[in-house]
């Protein structure tokens, strides 16, 4: 396979970033936007061709005679050599999930590029300030995210992991004159940085023991006769296995070092994927422009954590405890986020919590995947959900963007009853809601259903728990839907235009994504992506019982939402009054932000930083200064010695001479 296309996939966004960043100011807004979009379009084509090539060409590099998909390192360039073995390379890794991610990222990114051409201007068609910068950052993000998914080694992943974090920072803080955006971007960066610390230490531990960063060395076995081609082996390679298993397995504080490493790496994933308790940055990140939320904080970057776990899945399989932790964290987060989503009034916040909840679904799904249960259905389901979720969540966000663009506010109380004014938005949004609620035949139904059956296989408790979350999902999505589009008639204020549908650049992505959300469920995903490359017969494992139960739950939830929110009625207020504490906690997101505020500001800032700074100025520096002061004091103290009296001089002289001799004599004796 030629390496030109993969290189171009990475190089074009990077080039666009540099080009737009340096020269953007010199060109017109439209030109910059068009260039960015065209660039992304090219990448889209290239990525699709690569993915198509990978999945369907039947090239022996990609698939073996048994029909198992292989991993192929297209190129791998040494970037930084630490020691003989430990080397960071930058490369391009092609396997089912990276190919799938290529598709997801380029699709959503292109949609967002296109969408932003319309979104990033006001009603008079004047482009926003910093429009070129926006496209430059979008390109940077696309580059980083693509680099992340095609990473050949864990350190490359870390590098791009940091880069997506930085571009997310820049994009969240795009409206840098708004203090809330600035602090949100800061929060996002610092929280994920904290998580990355865990990731880094995890990498260090893992690489210390295994002596490698390469994914292929960690999780796969080389395929004989073909260079750079590997096959995932669920039984981890001997080289790795021998290090971590057996009686001599290194332990640290009661757990094996592998568990430590994997949990720490998962911590990085928790930060990026906004798992509790590191989720607090994601709702705030909605301060960024809405297309950014769609791209970064719904579809691509936030699933990096899931992707990371999936990438290292064979290692995780070795340590049951790590997977249990993932399951527990995921399950708690999913429920928590769903609860909170029910009580938010900012539509983007609702979507943000819904994202957290859905990503938690994927995490749980990975956590429950075991060979013994339907041959790893959970893994496949997780990836499938990742794919479908990216589509419908991007759709929902872009729809929300269209609404916000039209209304000028994030608050749904300013919307109500918009269905007549914005029909395209209405219908596409409804499709998105149906998809996420899991209504057959929309894509969410298939992926979520598989996750639930994977949970059911693993443990009934998890299954019931996650079904409950699914129920809540359907409820809060339709609550949102009704509150935006129904509830009561929209009032058009004097002197304002009536809200209307958006230009084609914004509508087109909505329609495309809606279409994808409808049909994506029918993609034979199992044939393409599975944990060991073997084609996975999805229908063989389909559990109609689970499917019908979840469908019923979703319908009930939608019905409930319809009753409560379709028309203006006192029911919601009554419910709120009936459970005031619950509503309050949910509305305030269980006070996580306040807790963090307390820890960072009251404890770290006030109890560590300030005292340290004081200590530095007064104790350390004070000591240094006191040397000088003491010297001066001493100088002052011995002043009387030089009294100006010659007799005094002579007296000291004589005493000195006698003492000099006397003491020496005493010492000699």
């Amino acid at each position, binding site marked *: 396979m030629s390496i030109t296309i993969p290189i171009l996939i990475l190089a074009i966004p990077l080039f666009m970033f540099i080009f737009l960043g340096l020269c953007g100011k010199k060109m017109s807004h439209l030109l910059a936007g068009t260039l960015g979009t065209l660039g992304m379009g090219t990448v889209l084509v290239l990525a699709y061709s690569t993915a198509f090539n990978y999945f369907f060409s039947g090239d022996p590099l990609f698939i073996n005679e048994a029909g198992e998909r292989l991993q192929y390192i297209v190129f791998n360039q040494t970037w930084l050599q630490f020691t003989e073995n430990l080397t960071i390379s930058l490369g391009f890794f092609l396997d089912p999930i990276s190919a799938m991610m290529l598709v997801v990222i380029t699709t959503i990114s292109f949609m967002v590029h296109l969408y932003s051409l319309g979104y990033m201007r006001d009603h008079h068609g004047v482009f926003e300030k910093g429009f070129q910068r926006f496209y430059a950052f979008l390109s940077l993000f696309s580059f980083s995210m693509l680099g992340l998914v095609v990473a050949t080694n864990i350190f490359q992943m870390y590098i791009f992991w940091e880069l997506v974090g930085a571009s997310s920072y820049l994009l969240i803080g795009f409206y840098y004159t708004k203090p809330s955006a600035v602090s949100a971007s800061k929060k996002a960066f610092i929280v994920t940085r904290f998580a990355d610390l865990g990731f880094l230490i995890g990498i260090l531990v893992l690489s210390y023991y295994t002596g490698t960063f390469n994914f292929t060395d960690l999780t796969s076995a080389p395929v004989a006769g073909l260079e750079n081609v590997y096959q995932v082996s669920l039984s981890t390679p001997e080289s790795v296995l021998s290090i971590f298993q057996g009686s001599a397995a290194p332990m640290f504080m009661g757990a094996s070092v592998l568990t430590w490493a994997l949990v720490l790496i998962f911590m990085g994933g928790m930060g990026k994927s906004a798992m509790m308790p590191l989720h607090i940055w994601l709702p705030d990140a909605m301060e960024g422009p809405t297309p950014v939320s769609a791209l970064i904080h719904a579809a691509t970057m936030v699933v990096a954590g899931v992707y990371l776990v999936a990438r290292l899945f064979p290692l995780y399989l070795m340590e049951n405890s790590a997977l249990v932790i993932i399951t527990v964290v995921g399950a708690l987060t999913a429920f928590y986020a769903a609860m909170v989503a029910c009580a938010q009034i900012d539509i983007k916040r609702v979507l943000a919590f819904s994202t957290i909840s859905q990503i938690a679904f994927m995490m749980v799904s990975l956590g429950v995947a075991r060979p013994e249960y339907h041959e790893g259905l959970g893994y496949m389901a997780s990836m499938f959900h990742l794919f479908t979720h990216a589509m419908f969540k991007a759709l929902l966000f872009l729809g929300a963007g269209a609404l916000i663009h039209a209304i000028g506010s994030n608050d749904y109380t300013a919307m109500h009853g918009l269905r007549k004014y914005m029909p395209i938005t209405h219908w596409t949004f409804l499709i998105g809601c149906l998809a996420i609620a899991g209504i057959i035949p929309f894509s969410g139904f298939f992926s979520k259903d598989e996750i639930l059956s994977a949970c059911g296989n693993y443990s009934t408790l998890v299954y019931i728990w996650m079904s409950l979350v699914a129920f809540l999902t359907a409820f809060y999505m339709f609550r949102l839907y009704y509150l935006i589009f129904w509830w009561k008639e929209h009032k058009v204020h004097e002197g304002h235009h009536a809200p209307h549908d958006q230009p084609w650049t914004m509508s087109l992505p909505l329609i495309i994504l809606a279409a994808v959300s409808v049909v994506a469920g029918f993609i034979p995903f199992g044939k393409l992506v599975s944990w060991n490359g073997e084609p996975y017969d999805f229908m063989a494992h389909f559990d109609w019982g689970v499917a019908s139960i979840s469908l019923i739950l979703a319908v009930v939830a939608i019905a409930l939402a319809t009753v409560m929110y379709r028309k203006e009625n006192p029911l919601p207020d009554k419910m709120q009054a009936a459970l005031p504490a619950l509503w309050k906690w949910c509305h305030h997101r269980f006070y996580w932000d306040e807790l963090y505020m307390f820890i960072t500001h009251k404890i770290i800032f006030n109890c560590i930083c300030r005292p340290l700074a004081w200590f530095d100025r007064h104790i350390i520096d004070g000591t240094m200064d006191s040397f000088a002061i003491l010297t001066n004091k001493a100088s002052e103290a011995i*002043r009387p010695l*030089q*009294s*100006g*009296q*010659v*007799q005094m001089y*002579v007296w000291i002289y*004589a005493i000195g001479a006698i003492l000099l001799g006397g003491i020496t004599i005493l010492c000699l004796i």
Partner: protein
Amino acid sequence: MEISAIYFLVPSLIMFCCGLYGFITRRNMIAMLISLELMLNSVDMNFVIFNRFLFPGQMEGMMFTLFAIAIAAAETALAIAIIINVFRSVNHVDVRELNEMKF
């Protein structure tokens, strides 16, 4: 009976100490000079005593004493000249008043 050196040395030492004491306590510079003379003379005596009692076969100590006397004379002359100068300038010879420069 030979009188041992110690009978000469002790007075010499006492003389030295007297000189020292006088030098430190007297305010009049002339008196201080006299005290200094005492000290120098005690040194001279020492030389003579040592020469006479310990090393009677040579004259080094005696010679040294002669030179020392000359030097003492020169010193005194110079000192007196300077004291006179001071007297002309400030009209007294009280050494304790001469403490303009200090610290």
